[in-house]
């Protein structure tokens, strides 16, 4: 095991070589905003691009990077903050995100990023896409209006037999997540809960559950996303 030194926004940190940059930064109290990434996910998806950082004057997404000796990275600069905010805005205009009525509100990563990046309104025009709600499956509802096409469910979720149940249909702006309904109906309750947690937004919902946690007890009710890391860093 060898350790390497790298610099993030001027601070030098030491980490095990070849580890994921986001995890390393997190352990050192530096929050790199992410949406499609989660810890120990294996091959990362690289679809949301929120974790874009700057390395040697190039823009790269942090989730694909493994730490190397002598890396000099910028994470929190006005330029990158604007870029991330723009990306979150693009997500909001692409779908139909109406937070007050959403079951995932308060636990939603997209919403949390919106608050964290101080997005008040989108600079782009809302598209008001007409997207359906799929409710034929026995155990879940798929709310396409809220889907950000992050690929978490299509690529990182498998049923008890180890097979994928979700897939992408079409491409480009017609892209949509579809499901193999028969397989979804066979999922156990635990699997459905796992699926619901896996979705970063409120697109996949467990049937018959609805709003189950009061305001104040949800994940991002009191502090913006990532702030717990930074507080820890300051103290």
């Amino acid at each position, binding site marked *: 095991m060898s350790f390497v030194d790298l610099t993030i926004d001027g601070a030098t940190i030491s980490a095990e070589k070849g580890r994921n940059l986001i995890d390393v930064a997190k352990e050192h109290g530096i929050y790199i905003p992410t949406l499609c990434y989660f810890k120990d996910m294996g091959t990362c998806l690289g*679809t949301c691009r929120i974790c874009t950082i700057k390395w040697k004057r190039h823009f790269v997404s942090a*989730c694909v990077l493994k730490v190397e000796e002598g890396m000099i990275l910028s994470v929190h600069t006005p330029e990158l903050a604007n870029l991330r905010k723009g*990306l979150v805005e693009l*997500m909001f205009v692409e779908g139909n995100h109406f937070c007050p009525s959403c079951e995932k509100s308060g636990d939603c990563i997209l919403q949390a990023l919106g608050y964290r990046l101080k997005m008040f309104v989108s600079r782009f025009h809302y598209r008001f896409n007409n997207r359906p709600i799929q409710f034929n499956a026995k155990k879940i509802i798929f709310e396409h209006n809220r889907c*950000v*096409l992050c690929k978490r469910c299509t690529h990182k979720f498998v049923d008890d037999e180890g097979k994928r149940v979700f*897939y*992408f249909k*079409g491409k480009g*702006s017609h892209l949509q997540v579809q499901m193999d309904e028969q397989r979804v109906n066979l999922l156990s309750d635990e699997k459905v809960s796992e699926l619901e947690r896996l979705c970063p937004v409120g697109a996949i919902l467990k049937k018959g559950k609805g709003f189950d946690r009061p305001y104040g007890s949800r994940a991002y009710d009191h502090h913006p996303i990532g702030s717990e890391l930074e507080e820890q860093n300051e103290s």
Partner: protein
Amino acid sequence: MIEIIKLILEKYGKDKTRIIDIMRDIQVYYTFVPEQSLNYLSTQLSVSLPELKDTLTYYHFLHDKPAGTYKVYLDTSAIAEISGLKEIQKAFEKSMRCKMGMVSKDGTFGLYKTSCIGMSDQAPAALINGHPVGRLTPQKVFKIIKDLRRGIHPKYKVSHNIFVKTPLILSDYKRGDSVRRIKHLTPEQVREEVGLSGLRGRGGAGFATGKKWMLCAGQKEKIKFVVCNADEGEPGTFKDRMMLSHYAGLVLEGMILGSYAIGAQKGFIYLRAEYQYLYNHLNSELEILRKENLLGKDILGIEEFDFDIEIRLGAGAYVVGEETALLESLEGRRGEPRVRPPFPVEQGYLGKPTIVNNVETFAAVARIIEKGGEWYRGYGTSESPGTKLLSVSGDCKKPGIYEVEWGLSIGDFLDMVEARSPLALQVGGPSGVCLDARQRHRTISFEDLPTGGSMMVFSKQRNLLEIIKNFVQFFVNESCGCCLPCRAGNIVMEEQMNYILSGHAAMIDLDRIKEWSQIISPSSRCGLGQTCTNPLITSMESFPELYKSKVQEHESLYRPFKVNEKTKSYRRMVRDEFC
């Protein structure tokens, strides 16, 4: 149905990576890929149904609904648009009795739009069941469809207009001249020779070929692959079409050299679906090479040098031209770019080290080994040695394929192709640069204006903004949708372009385009997204007056409200004649 699919599966040996080929074959029988066949495939190949549908719905040459016995794909590139695409489309619609994107009632014809099919020098063009017809006129269209109804196919013939200025690649070719030289060379010497020549990848990015091969050869893994990228999707380019029909042997020899240099056992040519008419020709070339022991076991008597090449057909997707997306497609999945690192030289096809090079790069390698790296370096400029094949189309007297030395000036280029009162030159296709034709001192080279080969000339009579809109739409249509900025950002750009064209844009919109492209392009995942704002940005830089003349001083309040669009359904109900 099961019987037929069984036969098809046997043909491909139940190989998971050949899903696209299997689906294509099923389509030959049923005009589309029926749901039942997917269920059967899923059990036989032990691939889940979602994975199959992932692949099926991604490619636009694969259909999940009945698609017509004769599928006509109409080229909608900018060049086709300026050569009378609208009339051709109308003629097709009228003669087939169906609208664009639909199938005629009797199920005989299906009419679809597609991006460039590599026939820009003979625009407007279309593909009929995979065969190209060029230089279409409404009369010709009516005749073709009338004949097809009686079962008579038109004569499918592609002519190549070749103009050679510096014959490095396009000189006389004698089979085996290049490969036979490896008898006296070690793999290392081959790599060094390529490195010495300074050859850079001809796909557009310009990565040093020698370095790529060096990196791949250095990998410990024993199994390696060579992949030839014959998926030229950039609108306006058609050089690979000519290379694979006239110089296929040269390209294949380049691949054999590549395999020798890195120690690969197997090679693939990823042939774009639009060029499937070249499939048989390439296969016969491969047969000849096998007979002459230039392919197969112990090639040229060199012990343990075994190599063979297989041709894989694509199914229609621009993004697959990106090397990692190509590898995904080769493995039978959606052609979405992979996250990098790891790079293909480390983990490519099936996770093994792979070199992916352009058709033209392999041809150049064959010449370099034949005549020496020093000789090749003697041409071109210091940063861009050698020659480049250019695909020239648009408003000029001599459209076609040119082989020129790197470093050619734009002025000389325009004179050479005999451009007619040129206004603008699109260097490198939509993802390249829109250049003012008056900048005659600029040079075609990696130092100044790099190009993958596409050169489109537009004269002063053309409405440049309409052309730029076509480019922007091209990116909207061809974005794979995998990453957010390209998927959603392109639509934002298209919206801005529409404002400009409709006269509703204000000065502030031009600033917005510049500002927003700084969000979309750096954050995108692959080359497509990173270059998708280029047509707008570069044309704004080259022709600021053109844009300024189209925009208002101040933003109007009612801009997003389009009265015609909002009242469309009402007007259709009352049969408004302007609808």
